[in-house]
């Protein structure tokens, strides 16, 4: 029995009146045991996903994304976005993650980015090509890192899946039974649907946007770059891009970002301009 359940049971037991007959005492003791069991059951239903599980869920979500999109195996570009990503990560609230953060580019004409649990982040080629400087590229990566830090991808898993997992016995868990595998696959699909089809809620996007501004500033990048990228997104929305049909409108996001930027210090991105141009040319973009 968990320590908390024992503690509550003892407190209840101690609070019993001193003058009771044996029958009452038996009933009270039974009640205490039932209460302790209930406390334990409630505690068990809330089963947090640990770092290792987050990583394995993220691997499968990423493998699913890579089944839908072609990976751009461009060493120069991949190294560059990993360097930008890691420069940001070290200033984030969650710099250490089970197997570290990884960043990659999908060979797609869509204008999009996805963050899988466990810190695997994808940007599309069209989005990278739309960036005019390193800070704009960093702003998109920062936004995705902030989704990972806030564990937004994991939040897409339906709560009944974790309750079901909590109810599975140790034997089944150890064997990795069909029930566990099905729950795993369903959880992966919950997240993939949110990333690829439904999108995050407006409140989650806002949280990631505002955290990204802070992260950019803390890392020395220009927070203003996020606003520039959202203007690009806004112009694509006007052309009715189906990809962002369910996301909060970029125009709404631009409004609160512009308001927050008034309280932030501007940063000069010119010292990174040269390496951005060199990398894009070397990467053939």
């Amino acid at each position, binding site marked *: 029995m968990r*320590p*908390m359940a*024992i*503690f*509550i049971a003892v407190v209840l037991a101690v609070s019993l009146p001193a003058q009771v007959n044996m029958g009452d005492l038996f009933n009270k003791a039974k009640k205490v045991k039932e209460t302790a069991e209930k406390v334990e059951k409630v505690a068990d239903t809330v089963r947090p*996903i*640990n*770092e*290792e*599980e987050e990583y*394995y*869920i993220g*691997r*499968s979500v*990423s*493998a*699913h994304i*890579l*089944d839908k999109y072609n*990976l751009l*195996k461009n*060493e120069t570009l*991949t*190294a560059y976005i*990993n*360097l*930008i990503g*890691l*420069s940001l990560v*070290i*200033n984030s*609230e*969650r*710099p*250490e*993650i*089970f*197997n570290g953060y*990884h960043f*990659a580019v999908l060979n797609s004409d869509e204008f999009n980015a996805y963050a899988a649990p466990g810190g*695997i982040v994808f940007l599309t080629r069209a989005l990278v090509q739309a960036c005019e400087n*390193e800070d704009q590229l960093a702003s998109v990566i920062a936004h995705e890192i902030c989704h990972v830090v806030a564990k937004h991808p994991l939040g897409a898993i339906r709560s009944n899946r974790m309750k079901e*997992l909590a109810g599975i016995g*140790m034997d089944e*868990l*150890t064997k*990795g039974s069909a029930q*566990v*595998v099905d729950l*795993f*696959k369903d*959880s*992966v699909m919950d997240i993939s649907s949110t990333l690829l089809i439904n999108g995050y809620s407006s409140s989650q996007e806002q949280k990631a946007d505002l955290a990204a501004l802070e992260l950019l500033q*803390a*890392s*020395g*990048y220009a927070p203003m770059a996020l606003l520039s990228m959202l203007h690009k997104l806004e112009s694509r929305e006007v052309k009715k891009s189906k990809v962002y049909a369910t996301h909060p409108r970029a125009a709404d996001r631009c409004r609160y970002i512009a308001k927050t930027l008034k309280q932030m210090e501007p940063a000069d991105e010119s*010292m*990174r301009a040269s*390496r951005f141009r060199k990398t894009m040319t070397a990467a053939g973009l």
Partner: protein
Amino acid sequence: MMRKKTIFILLMGIGLLLIAKNWVVKVAKAEIRGKPDFLSSTVSQVKKGERVKSIKEENQGWLLVEFHNGRKGYLHRSAVEGAGSLSGLIPGEKGARDEEVALAAKGFNEQVERKVKESPGYNFRDLDWVLNRSIGSEKVRQFVTEGKLR
């Protein structure tokens, strides 16, 4: 009077036990650094499940820790989780970490992934390509310095 003194000594003892906090590494591996800064040099490495003891909490989530029989260095708080100081005697404080770590690994893990790999709709080959592109701390440090980043 004597009873009060005993309670006071007992509380002091518990307080002392709580000061030096024990932690368990929750990530696959984490680097211990010479300074509380990700760009500083690596002193050593700790792996998942290893225990460290924090001596001091620094700014921005850094812990000065004692590890591997008395060696000292800085580890970021996000790499560890509390191991509890009194082995589960206090409700809410977790004890028996080794058992818990073993239990936690029995859920969504490598074994489950192996079974998922048999299904269509997943491209783990390209995922391996992504995960094998590793960047060392030295390159990140150079990139940050050259780009006038922080």
